[in-house]
């Protein structure tokens, strides 16, 4: 496998819960991200899936340095991003860019497309001389499949898919190596989703980009990702290639997730074993002891309450899985 470009080690983000009128006391912590480690290789797409509230978007914000982590490291090409001085941090930021979820709120309504896509050049003026900027912006619009003539239009004159393309053009402007995509297609129609994903795919080949692709839609992630990480309550529970996760899942949570994916073929659907989870996701302010999934797991034993399972390769799991009783089970093709 190619070199590791981005390493995340034990990243933790706790949001304090405060109470009080004048002097706010901290009465607890929301453990949004609680010890996540991952590696991103050059040119690969790492998909991250999980249900709402499991910390996916907080993870993206931490990677973008929009939130300060409570502890842990984000290393880009071997350097710890969080401990650089501001000037180096700005320079480094060029290489990690973000594509946001909602194309309707991620573009400033008061700026023209040319200003939005050209803003990275204004912020980092040494990237492109001023007279080249207009041409560069038009090139970028062309690259993402928009009409370069539309440089003077405003965001509200575009459709959702077109706006997402503008967001992608903005992220591409500084020629980054890593793009963090925070649910980039979940706000779009299904037909437009496919176009945007194909665009991301094509850009990856063209510019040798690495993606961290956050989504809650399993089929979207399978389509685009080389490797997939599954998150539950702020922790990574299983990581592997897309075949590892989709065909040979070993963590009960992954299996439950996959069994909920709708199957279009009715004959297959009849034989599908649906795993129904009981109860709600526990509050991230007060997660269960030991394994966080144990309260909803049908395999839970005493050890699950006392010992948090490590995310590691196990005799029964060929890829890292955080379950004491990891066991391969093909849920999608079960028959």
């Amino acid at each position, binding site marked *: 496998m190619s070199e590791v470009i981005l390493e995340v080690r034990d990243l933790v983000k706790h949001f304090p819960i405060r109470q009080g009128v004048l002097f706010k006391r901290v009465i607890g912590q929301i453990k949004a991200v609680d010890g996540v480690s991952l590696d991103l290789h050059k040119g690969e797409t790492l998909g991250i899936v999980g249900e709402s509230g499991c910390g996916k978007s907080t993870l993206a914000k931490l990677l973008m340095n929009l939130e300060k982590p409570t502890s842990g490291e984000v290393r880009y090409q071997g350097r710890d991003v969080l401990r650089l001085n501001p000037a180096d941090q700005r320079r480094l930021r060029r290489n990690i860019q973000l594509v946001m979820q909602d194309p309707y709120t991620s573009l400033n309504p008061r700026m023209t497309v040319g200003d939005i896509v050209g803003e990275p050049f204004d912020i980092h003026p040494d990237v492109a001389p001023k007279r080249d900027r207009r041409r560069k912006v038009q090139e970028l619009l062309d690259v993402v*499949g928009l009409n370069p003539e539309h*440089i*003077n239009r405003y965001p509200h004159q575009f459709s959702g898919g077109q706006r997402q393309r503008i967001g992608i053009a903005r992220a591409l402007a500084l020629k980054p190596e890593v793009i963090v995509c925070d649910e980039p297609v979940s706000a779009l129609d299904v037909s437009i989703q496919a176009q945007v994903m194909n665009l991301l795919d094509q850009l990856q080949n063209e510019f040798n980009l690495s993606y961290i692709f956050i989504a809650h839609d399993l089929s979207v992630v399978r389509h685009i990702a080389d490797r997939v990480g599954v998150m539950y309550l702020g922790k990574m529970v299983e990581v592997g290639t897309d075949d590892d996760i989709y065909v040979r899942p070993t963590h009960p949570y992954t299996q439950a997730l996959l069994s909920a994916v709708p199957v279009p073929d009715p004959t297959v659907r009849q034989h599908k074993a649906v795993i129904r989870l009981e109860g709600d996701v526990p509050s991230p302010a007060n997660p269960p002891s030991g394994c966080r999934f144990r309260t909803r797991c049908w395999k839970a034993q005493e050890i699950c309450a006392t010992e948090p399972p490590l995310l590691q390769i196990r005799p029964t799991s060929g890829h890292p899985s955080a379950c004491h009783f990891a066991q391969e089970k093909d849920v999608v093709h079960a028959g």
Partner: protein
Amino acid sequence: MSSPEVATPTAEAAPMPVTPAVVEPAPRKDKPRSLWTDAWYELRRKPLFVISAILITLFVLMAAVPQLFTSADPLAADLNRSLTPPDFGAWFQFGKQGQFGFDLQGADIYARTIYGARASILVGLSAVIGNMLLGGFFGILSGYLGGWTDTLLARFGDIFLGLPFVLGALVILSTFAPVQSNPSAFRITSLVILTFIALGWPSFARIMRAAVLSTKQLDYVHAAQALGARPGRVIFRHVLPNAIAPMVVVGTITLGAYIGAEATLSFLGVGLRQPVVSWGIMIGDSRQYMEAAPYMMAFPAAFLAIAVLSFVMLGDAVRDALDPKLR
């Protein structure tokens, strides 16, 4: 990559050239429409806006060049003409005086009413602009920075907000320009303006703070921060343009209120005073002659009411136009 959603609205006109012109894009058929152009489009269709805009233009003209409306000197007094009733025949004759009658000192009420617009507009406009700058600045500061800065500024502003407006103005003005004193026109005018700013900025700051708080959480602000934009750029390019509308609306309405407040203070004798010509002073002067010479009060009071009303109506129309939810 070609996709149907890239099809342009102007496609039926002519196929776009394959290589785009680098210098200038093809003739712009669709003018970019921002919120403000939309608002302007909306406003032009509102009779309320048109009427108030015409009236305000008239008042501003009066304030800027009163000579256009009268050739008489508002300060020239001739006791022979004291308390002469209005000469309605003079309304349609150029160069004649006494359209609105003459006051106790024998000064032309029409000329004084016209010249009085200047003080009212000047005080109202300067006070609102000052409030917007000061309140806007502190509002952005506390909204964007949050934390202790926010708490301190909010409590500091509450001190001024806790003071009833007229009482506060009375205290400040009677301290710095006692009723018996005779300050110069410039001194008393700027004092009144500063009083309004001192008492008014916290409410402007609150409005700005609320708008900034909701704007700074929007995705495009995060996007700019993720690109590495410095706070100054984020504030002036992204937050401020999207957060200023509520303050503009309140400012327009407050302008009318300030014109009224200026008249109130002048009437009470602590605001503007001779030799400044103002509607408030005229109304104050007239109070002992209500029965003998009602026209002394009627004309400046009518101008005052119409001016206040036009600014309030303008503010309403601007609010409706800027608020997409009401559309």
